């Protein structure tokens, strides 16, 4: 198999006062080396838990079953040390809210630099060169100077660019993007989507793109997984899911999207 990521029968269980609850149930999908797989669902669908399970970042108390293999390496049940080696180096993640995802007390340069040095070592001076290059790659103007600035000194779109630069500084083979454009304005969202697609294309990495927005998914993913209440509803190529949805829930979701091209009166309940 040349698949990059293979998720098989993934189940994530949380203990609650009313007994264990499966927030993800028997989810299976694969991500190829050079493609984007979209996971789409409404709130409570388990899409974010799936991504955290891949990164080994589930909250304390969560238990998992099934299998997640990255390039043949089993992630579920890997030791903390092994997971640390994978995270940031072979798989990276970006999040919905870039402001709170960056530490306000440190310059963005340092926050990228520490990731690079944790995996590649080397001197700070050498790492700084890499950081500047990474920031330039994501289209941040004047990267050398801006690396010395703090997160709050950037706009929302710039912060997400910084998160992307950080995630990609070690050239991982898998990028997980969890609602990376949800908090952004629509024009900025378009720029970030284009940037992600470009960078993914250049590097040939695999990407898991998680969102509640079907239109966003359709513009970036080659394959789509639809989730609902922890379960996998539909899984297929983007074309198949959007043009010939097999499941009622998917059809309902697609019908719910407010359509920019439709005049008012065509829409009905």
């Amino acid at each position, binding site marked *: 198999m040349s698949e990059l990521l293979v998720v098989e029968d993934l189940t994530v269980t949380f203990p609650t006062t009313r007994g264990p609850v499966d927030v993800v149930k028997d989810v299976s999908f694969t991500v190829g080396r050079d493609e984007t797989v979209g996971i789409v669902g*409404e*709130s409570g669908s388990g899409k974010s838990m799936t991504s955290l399970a891949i990164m080994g970042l589930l909250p304390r108390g969560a238990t998992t079953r099934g299998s997640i293999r990255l390039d043949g390496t089993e992630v579920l049940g890997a030791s903390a040390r092994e997971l640390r080696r994978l995270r940031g180096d072979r798989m990276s993640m970006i999040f919905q809210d870039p402001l709170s995802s960056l530490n306000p007390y440190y310059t963005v340069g340092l926050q990228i630099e520490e990731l690079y040095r944790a995996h590649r070592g080397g001197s700070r001076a050498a790492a700084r060169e890499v950081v500047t290059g990474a920031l330039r790659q994501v289209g941040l103007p004047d990267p050398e100077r801006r690396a010395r600035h703090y997160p709050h000194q950037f706009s929302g779109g710039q912060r997400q660019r910084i998160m992307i630069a950080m995630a990609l500084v070690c050239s991982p083979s898998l990028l997980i993007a969890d609602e990376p454009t949800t908090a952004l304005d*629509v024009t900025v969202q378009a720029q970030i989507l284009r940037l992600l697609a470009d960078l993914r294309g250049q590097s040939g990495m695999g990407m898991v793109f998680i969102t509640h927005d079907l239109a966003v998914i359709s513009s970036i993913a080659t394959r789509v997984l639809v989730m609902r209440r922890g379960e996998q509803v539909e899984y297929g190529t983007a074309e198949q899911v*959007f043009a010939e949805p097999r499941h009622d829930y998917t059809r309902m979701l697609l019908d719910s999207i*407010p359509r*920019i091209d439709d*005049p*008012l009166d065509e829409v009905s309940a």
Partner: protein
Amino acid sequence: MTLLRAKDLTKRFVARGPLGAKAGFTAVDRVSFDVRLGETLAVVGESGSGKSTTARMIAKLLEPSEGTLEFEGEDVTHAKGAALARFRGNVQVVFQDPFSSLNPRHTVERILMAPLVYQGIAPNGGRRAHAKELMERVGLNPDHSLRYPAQFSGGQAQRIGIARALAVNPRLVICDEAVSALDVSVQAQVIELLRRLQRESGFSYVFIAHDLAVVRQIAQRVAVMSKGRIVELGTTGQVFDDPQDEYTRTLLAAIPRIDPEWERRRREKI
């Protein structure tokens, strides 16, 4: 007939830094528009465009720095006391986050009766019956009138917020990102509800939103705001199909769309 007229509304915020340095910032810059009776006027824009500040000014939750606000021909820019109470009886607001705008310690019934008590309205059949009637109108089970907001889902809670706005039978309802926080399937239902309520009662909406696709589903006219100004104001069809302003065009082009070919094929199957 013009219900509400905003003329050159301006809001300047003066921030005083820790060094005593003053920094002026004009959030809304000479914004003018009319809202006609029975229509829906959408105000769209990205963050920092001034749309929410505009909403708060026309809801009289924020005093404009300059400009005037007229409601039914009466200048209400600086309305106080009885005039303000009358205005509040005619203009209601539905907010983005239903849970933070509903008192968690009050039952739905009490929440829905509060505006009547405030306005001194005693409807036929009593306030309690009126509250149940309101719940029915917005598609909630009136038997749940003694429940608390936390016992409802996000979509249901927003219905409570809408019912509260309608309690006093207003002439204008300002929706400030009222469907932005909802899941897409719930959002579609709430938009449909808002449209039905307007058909039934004939009031006007000012619909503040960042999502242009949502706006297209509900508004007859659209004002596009950017950096505190209205850059384009026209009928929904004109703004969406023949945008005159460069910024409007950028905004429209940025909206992610599903491949129309896929859409067509899916629709043919139904």
